[in-house]
């Protein structure tokens, strides 16, 4: 087990700074998810921790020890790749054993470790099979077993579930959460899928264009996003954000925060609009509603409204977020926030 510290990390590709002066501490034993759109630098960050593409400048510390100059194989790190990267000519057993052999673990111990790990991931009957005869999910397990057997202090995972079908992905998500609980090791998980991030993370690190936008547990990130990017990246559909020209302010609200109905209702902001699209998802329905303010996505447990129908939309005061000129969210205890509330109060946009 170990914490990871990145100090003043810069990574340059062909004279172009992909990551500049980044600082991040990943807590010991936590499940940390690096998330962001593609090209945001999350995989670059992971590969720097692994030592596969070392940083241009700055330090990487694992368990308090500077590993900036240590070879990948000696950092006490294991990594699971998106395409699993299983050695195709070796059997499952040889795949799992390879790292142990290189680390000169005695044979008897090796056999014992391989047996117990393969039991854990449910590969016991497949030890002598070649990877080409395994299904996607089984290959994923081989990759996991190969990482686990080395008893690393840190697990790195680079979009390990993205090659699996939707059903298996959900199942593996739960298995990974259980695995983390059982091992208690530091997990660093990279994904572009915010649902994966929300469902698995103890802490989410959200990145964009090589800069960390916010580090927080999922619920904190959801309820108090630090800026517009975070507010719109996390959550499906994303937060509705609109600029009110006459008041010169930007406010936002989550799709499920608005109430809709056939008659006007209580709320700080009230408006009405026409339903343009309707997505019935089962337990809830998502309506796209065109109002004089903007077009909003609104999620409701009520599925009785139809396309082309005009409905009233109201937003409760406590569910509204305000953003400043720099797209940062304005804290609810600041005076600026109260000013904005006053400006919006009692307006009807219809």
């Amino acid at each position, binding site marked *: 087990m170990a914490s990871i510290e990145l100090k003043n990390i810069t990574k340059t590709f062909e004279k172009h700074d992909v990551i500049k002066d980044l600082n991040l501490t990943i807590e010991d034993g936590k499940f940390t998810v690096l998330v962001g759109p593609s090209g945001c630098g999350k995989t670059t960050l992971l590969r720097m921790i*692994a030592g*596969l593409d070392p940083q241009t400048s700055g330090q990487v510390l694992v368990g308090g020890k500077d590993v900036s100059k240590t*070879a*990948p*194989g*000696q950092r006490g*790190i*294991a*990594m699971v*790749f*998106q*395409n699993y*990267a*299983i*050695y*195709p*000519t*070796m059997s499952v057993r040889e795949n799992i054993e*390879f*790292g142990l052999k*290189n*680390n000169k673990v005695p044979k008897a111990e090796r056999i014992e470790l391989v047996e117990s790990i393969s039991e854990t991931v449910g590969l016991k009957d497949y030890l002598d099979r070649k*990877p*080409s005869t395994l299904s996607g999910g089984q290959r994923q397990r081989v990759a996991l077993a*190969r990482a686990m057997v*080395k008893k690393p202090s840190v697990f790195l995972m680079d979009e390990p579930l993205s090659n699996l079908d939707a059903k298996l992905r959900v199942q593996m998500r739960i298995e990974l959460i259980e695995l983390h609980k059982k091992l208690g090791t530091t997990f660093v998980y990279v994904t572009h899928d915010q649902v994966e991030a929300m469902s698995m993370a103890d802490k989410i690190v959200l990145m964009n264009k090589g800069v960390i936008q916010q580090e927080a547990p999922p619920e904190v990130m959801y309820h108090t996003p630090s800026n517009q990017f975070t507010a719109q990246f996390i959550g499906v559909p994303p937060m509705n954000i609109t600029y009110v020209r006459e008041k010169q302010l930007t406010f936002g609200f989550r799709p499920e925060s608005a109430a809709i109905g056939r008659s006007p209702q209580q709320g700080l902001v009230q408006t009405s609009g026409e339903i343009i699209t309707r997505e019935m998802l089962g337990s809830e329905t998502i309506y796209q509603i065109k109002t004089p303010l903007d077009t909003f996505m609104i999620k409701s447990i009520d599925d009785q409204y139809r396309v082309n129908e005009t409905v009233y939309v109201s937003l409760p005061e406590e569910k509204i977020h305000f953003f400043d000129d720099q797209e940062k969210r304005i804290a609810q205890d600041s005076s600026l926030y109260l000013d904005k509330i006053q400006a919006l109060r009692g307006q009807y946009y219809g």
Partner: protein
Amino acid sequence: MTKSMHIVKLSIGYLLKLLLVTVFIFPFLWMISTSLQTFKETLAFPPTMVPAVPQFINYVTAWQSGPFLTYFSNSAIITISIIVIQMLVLIPAAYGFAKYKFKGSSFLFSLVLLAFMIPGQVTFIPVYLMMSDWGIGRTLLPQIIPFMTNAFGIFLLRQYLMQVPEELIEAARLDNASEFKILWKIMIPMSKPALATIALFSFVSHWNDYFWPLVMTDSAAVRPLTVGISMLRETEGISNWHVIMAGNVILVIPILIVYLFCSKQIVKAFVYSGIK
């Protein structure tokens, strides 16, 4: 109607294939047939395809008409040495070109391709002079040294290795494997089909090589089979085709044996798509 059309189409296809096979296999059958005929039969017109009594004695005659055991072992030593040395050179070279980024790598690779394009006939005089300068004319070395590297092999293996996902190497590095171990335990086993193809091509071209040993050798002690068989013709006044063909069959047999062992791997090399 459509069914009979289909049959006609199919038959034409088979006929064309049969024709093609005949074109390729006929000289081969002709060689075997001639090797079993009497001298008289070889001169008969119209030519006979099936000998009246198979003359296996021709093989004995061919084998005894010169130091054939020496020729054979020379051929074997030369060909095997060439393949082993080529593998030692081309595997690291191809791996380097495929998987390492270093300054001048594309320039060096284009030099390799250039070497691939220069015909041996252009370089044989300077190489001959160099070899005689070194005073190794009486050994097998002049038939081995010029072929220590194999530009085609480097090219083929490089293309093959370039398809291997980078993550495999990275996973091995994280598994604390040395660069040599990555090459030996992961890359080489994965490239078996390509290596078999390269080895077979190399084997065929050097086992059958006639021009180079003809230039480089001046005594029976260092001659390979190809040159030895051509000597059969020169020892007699008239061409003993039946004996020459028996010699040729002896020459070809090892190639057939090697091909039987490698054919599966060779097919694999050309259809390789990798494990995803």
